[in-house]
């Protein structure tokens, strides 16, 4: 017990508040009157619609697809009628072409074709992942089949399931690990087969020991799979931090995990791959944690993609107290919403409602060089100098100080006594640097 838990250097200990929803079993969210399914929910090319207004769709039916390799198709999450196809603001505020579906009053269950997953080849598994529209469900939504196609000269020997769920408040992965450990282990085995890895690790933060125990018994007969406990620290679940904590391998700047023989996948994605492989079920629903002191009954909801936030708020008993911030995703990296109209997408892990006591909106002042941002940066950058360069529009300097290596975990801003929104500056610097490189 006294053994030191695996972790990385830097990071922070925000208030976690997981207990609001960690004890709540996954429940099905109600189906709204109208679903908004964006044709781009992932990193990569947007999909072209395969349906037209007035068309009848079945649950699980493919309604959007793109030719590009880096993309993922989207599927109808209910059976119903296509009402329209129009540009709708997504959770980031960007206008995205979306398919609006009016669900049938009577919903039929998805009917898939059971398949023996034992003998699926790497090629077949990649195809299944693509057809099912799988993306990383932790937030970034990177197409899974792309991750399953590592460069030939970089063999992957280890698949890591990211069970850290280091974002405060969120508990959807916790519940999945606890309630569906067998499916997760099966999903991990498929991922290992897909990339030819001999070993699989499920990394779980020490605040979810019940999930770790469930996974240990579910994987007891799998010698190639182990469950490792990690220190509770943010951002333990960041890909590079997690790989380092578990293996000591360091992904070089600007490189992908395959560089060090690793593949990291989200809990939900692994389970979705198992479902897609064994029944053909595409990714049209996911577990979303609806929580925070600003909702009455926090919980974890199995939610159809395209469900507006307002439906989930209602499912959680509605707002309570003085909701000050409505966040899509976790409170460290998620997007604040102006209203509850945005739709759940494949990468939506949570809806967090913060009340005024948790929102500290101080005025940004000059950096006082306290070095707290340097102390906490898990990438060992000097965030204050990136900010300084960005303020002065010195993009070469911003790059020199590591703007491109920042993965925007937000530890610096969390700890900054001067209320500097580093992440905002870094995003600006990244955009400017990218624009300059295009020239």
């Amino acid at each position: 017990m006294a053994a030191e838990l695996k972790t990385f250097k830097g990071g922070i200990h925000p208030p976690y508040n997981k207990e609001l929803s960690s004890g709540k079993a996954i429940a099905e969210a109600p189906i709204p009157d109208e679903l908004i399914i964006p044709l781009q929910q992932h990193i990569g090319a947007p999909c072209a619609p395969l349906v037209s207004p007035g068309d009848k769709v079945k649950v699980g039916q493919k309604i959007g697809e793109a030719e590009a390799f880096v993309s993922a198709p989207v599927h109808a999450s209910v059976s119903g009628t296509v009402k329209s196809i129009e540009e709708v603001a997504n959770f980031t505020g960007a206008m995205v072409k979306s398919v609006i579906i009016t669900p049938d009053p009577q919903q039929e269950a998805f009917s898939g074709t059971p398949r023996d997953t034992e003998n699926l080849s790497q090629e077949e598994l990649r195809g299944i992942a693509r057809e099912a529209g799988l993306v990383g469900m932790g937030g970034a939504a990177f197409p899974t089949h792309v991750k399953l196609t590592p460069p030939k000269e970089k063999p992957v020997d280890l698949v890591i399931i990211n069970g850290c769920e280091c974002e405060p408040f969120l508990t959807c992965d916790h519940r999945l690990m606890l309630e569906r450990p067998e499916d997760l282990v099966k999903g991990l085995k498929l991922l290992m087969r897909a990339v030819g890895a001999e070993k699989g690790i499920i990394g779980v933060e020490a605040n979810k020991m019940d999930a770790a125990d469930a996974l240990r018994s579910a994987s007891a007969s799998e010698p190639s799979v182990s469950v490792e406990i990690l220190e509770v620290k943010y951002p333990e679940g960041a890909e590079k931090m997690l790989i380092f904590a578990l293996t000591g391998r360091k992904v070089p700047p600007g490189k992908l995990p395959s560089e060090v023989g690793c593949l990291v996948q989200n809990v939900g994605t692994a389970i979705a791959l198992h479902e897609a492989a064994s029944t053909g079920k595409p990714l049209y629903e996911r577990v979303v944690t609806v929580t925070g002191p600003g909702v009455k009954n926090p919980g974890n909801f199995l939610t159809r993609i395209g469900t507006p936030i307002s439906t989930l708020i209602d499912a959680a008993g509605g707002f309570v107290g003085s909701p000050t911030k409505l966040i899509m995703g976790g409170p460290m990296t998620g997007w604040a919403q102006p209203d509850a109209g945005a739709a759940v997408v494949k990468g939506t892990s949570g809806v967090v409602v913060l009340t005024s006591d948790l929102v500290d909106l101080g005025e940004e002042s000059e950096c006082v060089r306290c070095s707290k941002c340097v102390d906490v940066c898990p990438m060992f950058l000097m965030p204050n100098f990136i900010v300084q360069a960005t303020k002065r529009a010195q993009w070469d300097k911003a790059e020199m100080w590591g703007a491109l290596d920042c993965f925007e975990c937000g530890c610096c801003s969390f700890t900054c006594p001067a209320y500097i929104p580093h992440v905002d500056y870094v995003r600006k610097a990244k955009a400017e640097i990218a624009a300059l490189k295009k020239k």
Partner: protein
Amino acid sequence: MATNKLIVTPPPHLRAKENIPISMRDVLIALSPAVVAALVVFTWNALFNIALCTVVAILSELLMRKLMKRKPTLNDYSAVVTGVLVAMVMPAKIHWVMLVIATFVAVGIAKELMGGLGRNLFNPALFGFVFVWLCSGFIASWAGNLGILPAGFDGAVAATPLAYLKHGTFSSMPHPSYLGLLFGHPRGGALVEVGSFWVLLGAAYLLYRGVIRAAIPTAIVLTVLLLSYILGKDGVYAILAGGVMLGAFFMATDWVTSPMTLFGQIVFGVIIGVCIVLIRTYGAPSGAVAFSILIGNAFVPLLDKVFKPQRFGAVAAA
């Protein structure tokens, strides 16, 4: 639904319970044991000096920011901290004009003219102190004999314990014991020289609260200790006497004017420690800590660049 009141800002949406006013208040809390000790030893004298410096610091900031058309920033408490620090490093029986000048130079020039909190290169309090120290014509000692004293002002103060350090055993000069240096000796110079223990008590609080890190003070104290012994001096005496403890824990750790990386901070501390011992041994017996920290401040931009951390996963250039 109260959705019309939702606030939209970029992530992260959670914050540590800290900001500049909280940290500055922590510094004031940490200074309080030494301030109380000074009040006990120097009574009205200390009270007058501290009050005067604090008021002048606040007025200087207000005035300069008004002149430069900047928003007032008094609520960050940094002017108050600087005022108290100036009072603590100045001799107890110094003329009030000197206090006013030192405080104005500290806050008005070293901080505000440089661009305000965050942009100053040199520690404001020490800048003000050194300015007065030099401009009053190399005051022979901390005796308070500044030449502009009004008639009847008591200028006779015990010789500073630092003189002992320079001259070694000085039979004619009784010097305080280690315990005396820790818990106060009678009227031996600056307010803060009432006892290093009280300074250390406050320092422990700053470390506990995470306002300062241990690297800089540890490097300074160890350097002074070891180098003093190497040069044949009493190392323990050297770190307990004068302003070493206040300088190491309260001045050299000033966020704005110290390096941001661990290695930078260690080297910074060593530079200051070496300067303190050399100045005390071969130069003036007093003021060494202030000069040394200001010299260290000048190295900060370079130290930040040289000791820029190796980013995660980067391979050292072979």
